[in-house]
């Protein structure tokens, strides 16, 4: 039967069978490796989490039951004392409120602006890819550079923002944006939105690109105008992705320390004193590590609460 060469070539593999059997011994060790590879590969990360997250978290909770400061570095057990102090302290409730406003305002504006920009960048026009690239700049720009340039822009004496507003007659004289309680909060919010809205743009744009085109064509045939198409097709299609983005961004903005701290340090008059800054103030400003830890623990439980909403949402999605 083997008249052609390929046939012969395929057939010479009799010795292959022998090699297979020799392989069986070799694989005993590597079979074990194969069987437990999942655990083995997860081990380094588990170790990382254990040492750098779980232990510190437990230690943080532990510390929150102590009064611990420079004069008493070993700490004195105070039980729930720090929490009692916390929940009876108006500064804590004030910061909780500020944090909530800060997260709500920045996320709300990021979502609205991000979605609008994504819709714009989904249209086709000359130079679109350039604009798409540039829009990402605020997101990739180092936080400290962002802070510094906005400090310059907001500057009361020679800041460009004041110059333009005075020239156009919108305000009569320069405003010290970051050092007045009423303007400081919104000035900081503005930077938070500027820095992070590109994230929403990228996610929403990616989602827009996979909405089937024939949905729009069908709606058009059914007589829907551009506004009806937005509300009846685009928005429902974006709903889930917007919910997820809003939830996750809320967590990050709630926990964000750098933007506010570096622009205002929590001031003026605690107008921008968010919870992370309060932790910092207690722990490294007045060296009350126990109280700082107690605030951090409360933040942790807020995080757990929001994350369980997220996981519940994911579970509903998967069903």
């Amino acid at each position: 039967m083997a008249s052609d060469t390929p046939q012969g070539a395929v057939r010479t593999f009799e010795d292959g069978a022998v090699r297979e059997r020799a392989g069986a011994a070799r694989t005993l060790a590597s079979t074990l490796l194969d069987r437990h590879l999942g655990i083995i590969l997860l081990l380094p990360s588990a170790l990382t989490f254990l040492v750098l997250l779980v232990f510190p978290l437990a230690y943080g909770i532990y510390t929150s039951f102590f009064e611990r400061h420079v004069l008493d570095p070993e700490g004195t057990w105070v039980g729930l004392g720090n929490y009692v102090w916390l929940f009876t302290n108006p500064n804590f409730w004030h910061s909780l409120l500020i944090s909530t406003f800060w997260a709500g305002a920045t996320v709300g504006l990021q979502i609205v602006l991000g979605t609008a920009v994504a819709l714009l960048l989904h249209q086709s026009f000359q130079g679109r890819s350039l604009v798409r690239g540039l829009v990402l700049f605020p997101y990739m720009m180092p936080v400290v550079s962002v802070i510094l340039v906005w400090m310059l822009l907001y500057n009361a004496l020679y800041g460009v923002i004041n110059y333009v507003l005075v020239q156009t007659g919108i305000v009569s004289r320069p405003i010290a944006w970051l050092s007045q309680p009423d303007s400081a909060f919104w000035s900081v919010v503005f930077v938070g939105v500027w820095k992070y809205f590109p994230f929403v743009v990228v996610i929403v744009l990616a989602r827009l690109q996979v909405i089937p085109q024939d949905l729009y064509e069908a709606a058009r045939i059914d007589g829907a105008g551009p506004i009806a198409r937005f509300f009846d097709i685009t928005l429902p299609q974006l709903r889930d992705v917007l919910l997820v983005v809003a939830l996750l961004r809320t967590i990050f903005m709630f926990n964000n320390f750098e933007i506010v701290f570096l622009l205002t340090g929590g001031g003026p008059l605690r107008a921008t004193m968010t919870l992370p800054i309060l932790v910092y103030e207690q722990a490294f400003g007045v060296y009350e590590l126990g109280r700082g830890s107690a605030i951090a623990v409360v933040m942790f439980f807020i995080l757990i609460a929001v994350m369980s909403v997220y996981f519940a949402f994911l579970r509903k999605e998967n069903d």
Partner: protein
Amino acid sequence: MATVRLDRLHKEFRSIGGAVHALRDLTLDIADGEFVSLVGPSGCGKSTALRIIAGLETPTSGRVLFDGQDITGLEPRDRNIAMVFQSYALYPHMSVRQNLEYGLRKRGVPREERERKVAAIGAMLQITPLFDRRPRQLSGGQRQRVALGRALIRDPAVFLLDEPLSNLDAKLRVHMRAELAALHQKVRTTMIYVTHDQLEAMTLSDRIIVMNHGVMQQVGTPEEVYSRPANRFVAEFIGTPSMNMIEGTLRPEGGRLLFSAPGITVPVPPAAARQGTTGQATLGIRPEDISLVPPGTPGAIPAQVTVSELAGAERFHFIALNGHSVIVRTPAATVLHPGETVALGLDPERLHLFSGAGEDAAAIR
């Protein structure tokens, strides 16, 4: 080269709503060099069975034996098998040559031998000119050949094919089907082929295993499965257009057994009648086993034509028969018009009777 024995293979997938039985008690012997097909609708367990043979899934219970040796616990690489995937699964970052060589390399085959084998496979499948290309630079048919080559090059004991033709367009599929048949003639390796396309299974296989809901329905040569389906499911699954099914009852009358449904009464062939089954039953007859007879022929059944379709060399007529609808296959020259009354003759030798009405209704023979 190996015989394959599947011994009471059982596979459950646990899920939230309880266990899903992907495979129930599959027992099968495959001879050395045989070409068998596992065929059935999606979710019937055919792919699960193939993946268990490959070692990609572990059965919940049961064993897989190659040449009498239990290999159930072995990793895929220790089984001396090769597999062609539906997606071909060519390594995108490797050239065709590297794709072909990969398995040999992993088994420590020396370089000269590898080169010799790659050259031989290239010549056999006529893919030598493609050796330096990447998979994405190949057409569907070329990818198919490379995938076959990658499997063949190792001269596996068992050759597994998972819907290898379903990503090709219709014309190429017929062509590759023929090549595959020729290939099997040439290499004579045990081949196990999974497909949902009964025509592929019929044309390629020595034996066909028809599966449904994880249960083997029938094993047999294409001939047997086509002409003596074991149950109603097999009867309807094999053959296009499907076998006509008429539900009715079996009852004795005047010493004979009759099948009757509204407007139809057919005497049961003596062989089937000997079983003496009565009660609810289904009559099956293939479209080509119904003939158009002159009106007034004894036993002819009057019926109305609904639609006629020309399918190249033949015609399919949809005919209303007292509330039943049947398809009749005739040469293209037979022209019928909608509304026309015709007389149908059923070949009594080619009737199939099933006891009951469900898809598991067993054939009465």
